């Protein structure tokens, strides 16, 4: 689960990490008075769940309260399109009005989960404020990493190791170590999957400040973080993504027109790959998960039927926990409740596959059955 910059900064601040003075506002008038409180000049930052805000015009400096108000007015209520959003962009419902900070140096700092070391790792670089993925790809030696042991946490020596390698001053190394240790506390206490401070700035007065902050909370942990669940901004989600999350599906919207419904993430990706290989474009990734019920299958299938972008549907179910007859019944239910004549190709294998196929064949619906992956892909590609 993504949260907004202003929410992330509030959490970091609670843990003793310096952030610039700022105020989240939802209208131009409040933006103006926020700017006045900050001394007139201020940065206006669109609060959206997407990276690349700066390049997309979502971050602007106002030199007077009036200018700040004008910028806020121009942003709030619009959609911001960045390289991480779809073409519709993400709605700007509020902006952060923040003091303008003088910057000596911009660094990058993050904590993420690393499967290779089976731990959280801290990542630091002097190349802050830039596209860190670009740096990682072209100058990997500029990215420093340390693995954090869950039993002892982030240790001061790790902060010193990073700090001296980054060439920071002794005073800045102490501050950096503290920020890193506190970030790790935030990471653990809130079951984060990502904390990213980019840039972590050394300001004109030589203090370290989190100029921007991104926090992702792990969805699977939310059962024990009710207060974090409250930070969810569903307006930032695509309406289908929101629905799929409520149903309990793993769903990602894509640009094509072949709706895909599959059980298992690996098989779902394989299905998308084969659809593309056959010359068509998937409209989505949709994994109905392990033990989906008939109702869940019906809801998932309805999601595809209701998507105007979806022109045909490919179902690929390999029964294991999920029984194929259950899947077939769910599909039939959805079709009966939602008149539609788009082409549907279904492949059923594994547990109760024959029963499932009988149900589909006996349903009177216009569904074509496929035996193999490639057959399914070819059928859906050639159907109109």
């Amino acid at each position, binding site marked *: 689960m993504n949260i907004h910059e202003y929410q992330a900064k509030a959490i970091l601040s609670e843990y003793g990490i310096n952030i610039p003075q700022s105020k989240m506002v939802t209208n131009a008038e409040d933006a103006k008075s926020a700017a006045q409180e900050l001394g007139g000049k201020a940065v206006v930052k669109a609060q959206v769940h997407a990276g690349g805000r700066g390049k997309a015009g979502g971050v602007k400096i106002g030199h007077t309260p009036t200018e700040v108000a004008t910028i806020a007015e121009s942003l709030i209520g619009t959609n911001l399109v960045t390289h991480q959003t779809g073409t519709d962009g993400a709605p700007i419902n509020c902006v952060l009005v923040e003091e303008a900070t003088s910057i000596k140096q911009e660094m990058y700092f993050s904590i993420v989960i690393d499967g290779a070391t089976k731990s959280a790792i801290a990542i630091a670089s002097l190349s802050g404020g830039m596209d860190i993925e670009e740096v*990682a790809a072209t100058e990997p030696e500029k990215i420093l990493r340390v693995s954090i042991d869950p039993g002892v946490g982030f240790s001061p020596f790790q902060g010193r190791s990073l700090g001296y390698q980054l060439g920071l001053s002794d005073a800045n190394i102490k501050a950096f170590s503290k920020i890193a240790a506190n970030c790790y506390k935030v990471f653990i206490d809130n079951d984060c999957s990502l904390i990213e401070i980019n840039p972590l700035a050394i300001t004109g007065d030589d203090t370290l400040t989190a100029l921007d902050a991104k926090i992702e909370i792990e969805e699977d942990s939310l059962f024990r973080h009710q207060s974090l669940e409250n930070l969810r901004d569903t307006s930032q989600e695509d309406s289908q993504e929101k629905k799929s999350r409520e149903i309990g599906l793993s769903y*990602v919207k894509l640009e094509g027109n072949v709706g895909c419904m599959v059980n298992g993430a*690996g098989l779902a*990706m*394989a299905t998308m790959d084969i659809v593309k290989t056959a010359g068509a474009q998937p409209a989505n990734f949709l994994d109905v998960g392990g033990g989906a019920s008939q109702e869940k299958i019906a809801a998932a299938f309805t999601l595809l039927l209701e998507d105007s972008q979806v022109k045909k549907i490919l179902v690929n179910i390999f029964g294991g926990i999920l029984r194929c007859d259950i899947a077939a019944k769910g599909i039939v239910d959805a079709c009966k409740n939602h008149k539609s004549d788009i082409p549907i190709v279904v492949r059923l294998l594994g547990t109760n596959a024959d029963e499932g196929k009988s149900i589909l064949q006996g349903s009177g619906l216009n569904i074509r059955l496929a035996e193999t992956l490639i057959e399914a892909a070819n059928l859906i590609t050639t159907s109109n």
Partner: protein
Amino acid sequence: MSILVDTNSRIVVQGITGKEGSFHAQRCIDFGTNVVAGVTPGKGSTLFMDSVPIFDTLEQAVEKTQPNVSIIFVPAPFAPDAILEAAENEIPLIICITEGLPVQDTIRVVRYIERKPVRLLGPNCPGIISPGDKCKVGIMPASIHKAGKVGVVSRSGTLTYETVQQLSELGIGQSTCVGIGGDPVSGTTFADILEMFQNDPETDAVVLIGEIGGTKEQLAADYIKNNFKKPIASLIVGQTAPKGKRMGHAGAVVTGPAALASEKIAALRDAGAFIINTPSEIGATVEKMLNT
């Protein structure tokens, strides 16, 4: 003709009275697996299907039935505790089917068991099956399997079934099929399983099914290059997934160049693996590999 589980495996099912636990325990027994005990706190001193004793704690189950493999079906919030319970009782092989464990719980658990004489498979994995030994400790549909000499290892559940289906259809049997799990942090790596296949005289070749995200396939490629002497074929799925989108498995996040399918394929090809170009060609590619 198997790794990890065989005819000597004695299975305890943690969470045997739950919906999934009871369903799959029965399927495992039907296949021939020796399920010796179940554990559900509060259900001690009862029987599962009139035959398998249920205990309140694993400790009691161990004392009375000496299991050497545990399979875990308890819900995600309680699964880390179940793994710890199995590790503390030194069950040599712990298979966690449960998905949706908070990854920080997994990290704590995985680091803890490093000091114990146990191996964890999963979490979020389909389990393991050795068809020739009639031992299935997992949720895979047994019917698609065929005893033979090809080992299968994968991060994915249903994609493993797809693989097995394609192999069996061409008459290619499997020694053992292992799902290491789809989460970013797992107890067992590709390299761990490859080492076992390397040492298993009854495994002649291996199929490795990877996917985008993380660097697990690169670590596998390193192992293959330096240590693995048997023919190995490999498929990486997610080749067409757009960058920056999350595809279901928590592991399948495109976070950097290393996480890309192209990078993984290059590493595996460089290590000497036969590359399976599309998911529909798994069986055909393995057949070709076995004939060269």
